[in-house]
């Protein structure tokens, strides 16, 4: 998938600022760009711990002490009014806290809820799951647990699709996978339209999976300790939300961002260099770098003397460590700070930094 020209990537000053902002995370290298995301809304059965509603608790208590379990008996005892009581009892029954046989009784679960003031229940609810769009056409999107506050809507073409099985596959993954990628552990089931339906299950249309394309402007920092942190960028002012990462991947991030795992090829660096040079008029004979070598967050450019001279003459920011380039042409690009070193004269040992 290619990138639209109109889509903006951060400038050098922003990158420099972000780099300083991310310093506490000890980033080793930086990737910036846009995450293309599938925001998949699905009906999930979620295990939730709910606080016992005060009224329900009172009704449960009354039931647990009342020998007469009839609705009339409870109503006679409590007198909250039949509609309210009926609704409370229905709610308690649907949550498994009360049961109705010969009369209304408190279940074991209800007793526990009375003791603890809370209870767990499986609730069908429509909730969003985020998947990073596959970088290749044949690759499936990968689940990503992220803070989606700053995700932006996105318009996709006909190729954009999401197979319901991909979400089901996540659910079928082993626990360590779920922990690794922070798949919500409370989700026990994804209810699809093809699942068997009981009488009181949600209607088919609520079981439809809905995919909304979204994108998240992001800076990915690969830290010294091997984590990949994703920081969202505010779309309105381009500031990096550096306080807390939108997502954090420890191991397994290579599955999600396989491209990040590899350094861009040399031609991408060269292209980035040229892109940087072109607006500065640094093209022409004798100005091509002798060597481009990415090293951590830096792109070390071995410059011929002529180029070095031009840089010095223009007081280039590259010599002040403020020039940044982006390598690659995808949605995510490797960011690197230019570090220009002058080509050593023949016979000289080592590289000398320009400044």
């Amino acid at each position, binding site marked *: 998938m290619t990138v639209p*020209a109109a889509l903006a990537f951060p*400038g050098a000053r922003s990158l420099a600022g972000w780099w300083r902002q991310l310093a506490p995370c000890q980033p080793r290298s930086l990737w910036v760009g846009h995450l293309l995301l599938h925001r998949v809304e*699905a009906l999930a059965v979620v295990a939730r711990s709910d606080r016992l509603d005060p*009224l329900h608790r009172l009704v449960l208590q009354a039931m647990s002490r009342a020998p007469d379990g009839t609705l009339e008996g409870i109503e006679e005892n*409590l*007198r909250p*009014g039949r509609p309210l009581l009926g*609704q409370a009892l229905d709610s308690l029954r649907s949550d498994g806290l009360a049961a109705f046989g010969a009369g209304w009784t408190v279940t074991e679960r209800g007793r526990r809820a009375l003791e603890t003031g809370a209870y767990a229940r499986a609730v069908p609810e429509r909730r969003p799951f985020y998947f990073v769009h596959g970088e290749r056409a044949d690759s499936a999107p990968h689940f990503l647990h992220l803070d989606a506050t700053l995700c932006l809507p996105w318009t996709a073409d006909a190729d954009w699709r999401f197979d319901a099985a991909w979400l089901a596959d996540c659910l079928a993954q082993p626990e360590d996978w779920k922990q690794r990628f922070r798949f919500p552990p409370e989700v026990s089931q994804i209810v699809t339209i093809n699942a068997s339906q009981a009488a009181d299950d949600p209607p088919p249309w609520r079981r*439809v999976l809905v995919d909304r394309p979204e994108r998240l402007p992001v800076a990915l920092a690969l830290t010294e300790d091997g984590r990949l942190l994703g920081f969202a960028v505010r779309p309105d002012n381009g500031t990096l939300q550096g306080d807390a990462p939108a997502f954090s991947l420890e191991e397994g991030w290579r599955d999600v961002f396989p491209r990040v795992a590899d350094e861009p090829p040399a031609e991408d660096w060269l292209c980035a260099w040229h892109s940087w040079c072109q607006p500065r008029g640094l093209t022409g004979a004798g100005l091509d770098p002798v060597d481009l070598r990415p090293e951590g967050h830096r792109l070390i450019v071995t410059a011929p003397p002529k180029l070095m001279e031009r840089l010095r003459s223009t007081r280039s920011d590259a010599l002040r460590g403020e020039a940044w380039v982006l390598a690659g042409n995808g949605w995510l690009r490797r960011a690197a700070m230019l570090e220009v070193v002058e080509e050593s004269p023949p016979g000289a040992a080592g590289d000398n930094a320009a400044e």
Partner: protein
Amino acid sequence: MTPRDRPAFAAVSAPPRVAAPAAVRPSAGPAVPERPVCWDDLYPQLTPAQQAEVLAIARGGQAVQAARLTVPANGQSSDRVRRLLSAALAGRLADWMPVRAASVECLDVDLDASQREAVAKALATPDLCLIQGLPGSGKSRVAAEIVTQAAIRGERVLLVSPLAAAVDGVLEQVGPRDSVGAIRLLGREERIEQLPSAIAALTFDARLRHFEEHTLGAARRQVEVAHQRHERRQHDEAVWERCRELADAQERLRAEAVALAERRDRIGEEVARDADAPEGGPLVEALAASARTRQDLLAVIAGKRDRLEKVRSGHVHELSEMAPHFEEVRPLAEAKQRRQFWTGTWWKATLKGNPSSRLAELEVRQQELHKALADLGDESAALDRQREQAEADYQATRRQTIEQEIARRRADIDDRDAALRRDRDLVAEKWRLAVADLAPETAPPADPTPLAVERAVESWRRASLEDESQAACAREWAEGLAVLQSEWPKRVAASTNVVAAPLNAVAGDPHFGDATNSSFDLLVVEHAHLLAEADFIAVARRARRWVLIGEADFDDEEPRRAAEPRRHGERDAPRPRPRIAPVPTLLPRLWDKLHADPRRLPYQWFAEGQRLGCRLHALSADQRSYLESEPVVDFPDIELRILARPRTAPILAEVLFPAGMSALGAKEYLFRELQELPVRAGGAGYHWSEDAAKIVVRLSEGDAAAASRLELEAGVRELLIDVGTDASTWRTLGIEFDRAADWDRARAETWLERHLRFRDLGRTACLGIPHRSAPHLAVFLSDLLFANVYGPVTLPSGNGQPAPVEFVPVPALHHDSGKPENGRRNGVSPRGRSFRAGAGLELDLADPRSRDRLPAELRPELPATGLVNFLEAQALVRTLESLGTPPERSSVMVLALYPAQAELIRCLIRRCPVLADADIRVDVPAALRECEAKVVFVSLTRSHTHRAVAFGEGPRSLTLAMTRARQRLILFGDPGTLVRRGQWEGPVDHLDDAAAARERDLINGLLRYLHGDGTHAHAFHLHESGRA
């Protein structure tokens, strides 16, 4: 990022060689991302086609791409209600998926099949469902069932109606159902005290008041009661101590009593034992004294006996000594006596003296001894007797002594027992007092024993704990409620699953008025036929699905006229009257588009001479002039009539079959050769039913077993009833599809759509079976008001039943005022009556001269304006009086077509001693729209002398009045005025052309019955005397 940075940001954008992908385009999003529309909100806004498409995508295992769903915008109304309505009213229904409603287990088991079908459709519709029914066909019950079923399914229902009474009618039915938590909103003009008590209790304020007074009040009372009970229990603590002491005392006394009883039982043994004791008390002494007495006596006797023995021994010795003497003397004496001197004995005797005297002496002595011995024996026997007597006396004395001792001791025990009993009674009294001192709820000991007391104490302890627990619970409940008090309105609102309101009440309601915070799953509109489109749109926005229930437009005769068999020569008769179409309300317009009425199909069967014909297309009189006839080549007897208008393609309009050809043959030919399926439906809708073997769509009522089957194609049959050559009799009962021939519902629907060019969207339901009226009354009303469109009515057998409809002419049909012109005989009501002109009894209260004709005492109580008919009101009240005991509220109702007449009747009722206390509803029809009664009196009021006048507000009002009765309908009116009205064509009074025509038809129908010509004459009775 500073503003300067932004160009820099752009400066590092994608390199020039990178082309923008066609696949993805950035959206011009806002600075702060908007959250996507929730699917629950989005889906209902989609068109039915879109909904079907997304469901298909989902079933294919793919996620639906929300961005590709075109939510209406840019010129299209984003309002789902408007979109759906505009699509429906414009007939853009191609993308509406038919609804296949599953059968519903109704709570109201008395609902008929059509009502159940209506309920099922209302519950199954994804958007809109229309239910139409004639008056009395059970619309309110259906509405109640729909509301209840929806509530059971967890849906929130909004029930509205332009008429508050209609809402209340439904609420009265659903209110008591457990699954329904209903709130009644008050309309702008309504006040809570005006509502029936059962309905008033459902208002929000009443629910809150219920909380304050009942819930919270009861909780506080419970706390108080629990507290008091707890205190009483505490007081029991001391009582239990007393009980314990008393129980111990009682136990001790009881033991003593038992011991005494035992001792008493053992007194005999004890005394006997004491008597045998060597030493002892008085008993032993007494017994010893007796024994001594006996011993003394025995000793005396023994002395005597010894002496006697000695004497006897002497005597015996003497006797023994006398024996040798006898042996010696006796031979001597005998020899001497015999004088045997020759014997030595004799000689010896002689020598010895006188042996004979000696012998005599011996003998005397012997006798004396014997006698003495005998005497001694007697004495000895006497001594024996004395001894025995002494022994017996001793024993008797001993026994007596013992018995006396026993009696003494027993008396002693009795005394002690009595004392014990007194003690026990005393303790028992104390016990009673102690037990009475226990709290009423404390279970007293079963008996005054320590064990029982301990058990009771144990039970009391448990009860105390329970009390404490209950007190804690009550306290907790009361405190919890107090905490919840502030949020109670929210809870009440949240617990409400049915909100019922007059139409104008919803928007302004503080709890449910805000549409954004209060949405509903289902909107049920009662009396929807009175609802304007704008009103509906305003209220429909609050719900996802809508059910409109209203009266069938029975004034619109088009469908049923099309269904009516035509008589010979009637075929081209023009419609009897021109009509100015009134602007219909929303319901009939929607009904017209959504309801698939098989009677609207263009097919018409007719008889032309002896030949049966089928019209495939409706033809105007003008079009008929372009008809060309030609015979079928293969079947020259069959004539085709082709509409061949200039410059238009010819259309096969009619097919005429040879004489004698049956409808079955004709239909077979039409389907086989022309692929036409000219059905004739008797019902107003299509009714699907499915079983394991077949799918049937019914078009008429009838017995399928008796139907003829016309095989149309493999597995498809048309069921025909009353098939004959007469075109006016047969009907299409339905069409049957065999599952064995691979027919399923979808395929059957497609087949029907192809052959009958209709699509049943499954969103409409008709109710036509009269439930309110008794059968004979129903058939009368059906004939008079609804052109016999009421559903099948099973009439009870026997003709002896009184006519359910009575007409009381005012004035009475006396010979001089209402004399029939054609052979009226004494007491016999001949057919073909005619009536003279109106009697002119009506009075206009606005006219002082007319007003003066009323009794002076009535005038102040009547309104300033309005029409009254005093004589008619009097006749009506007299008839009411004749009913006997004051009727109950539900049994009698009086409807007058004019408010002033209603007031006059009320005045007369108040003045009638028999009826003064009766609760009789008297009002105009509109005010009693939702009411019904066993007997209904209708005062037509109008009685004009010389011109045709309108009756009430219009024909609907008259219809409304006549359909309120369950068993008996009594009409009061001036036949002459009715005749005048029936003769008048054209607008009259405030009625426009159409309304006037409808009223005229109705009046003429009534006149037919007055003349004795009614179709159901047995159901109608004319009281010629002017009294019922």
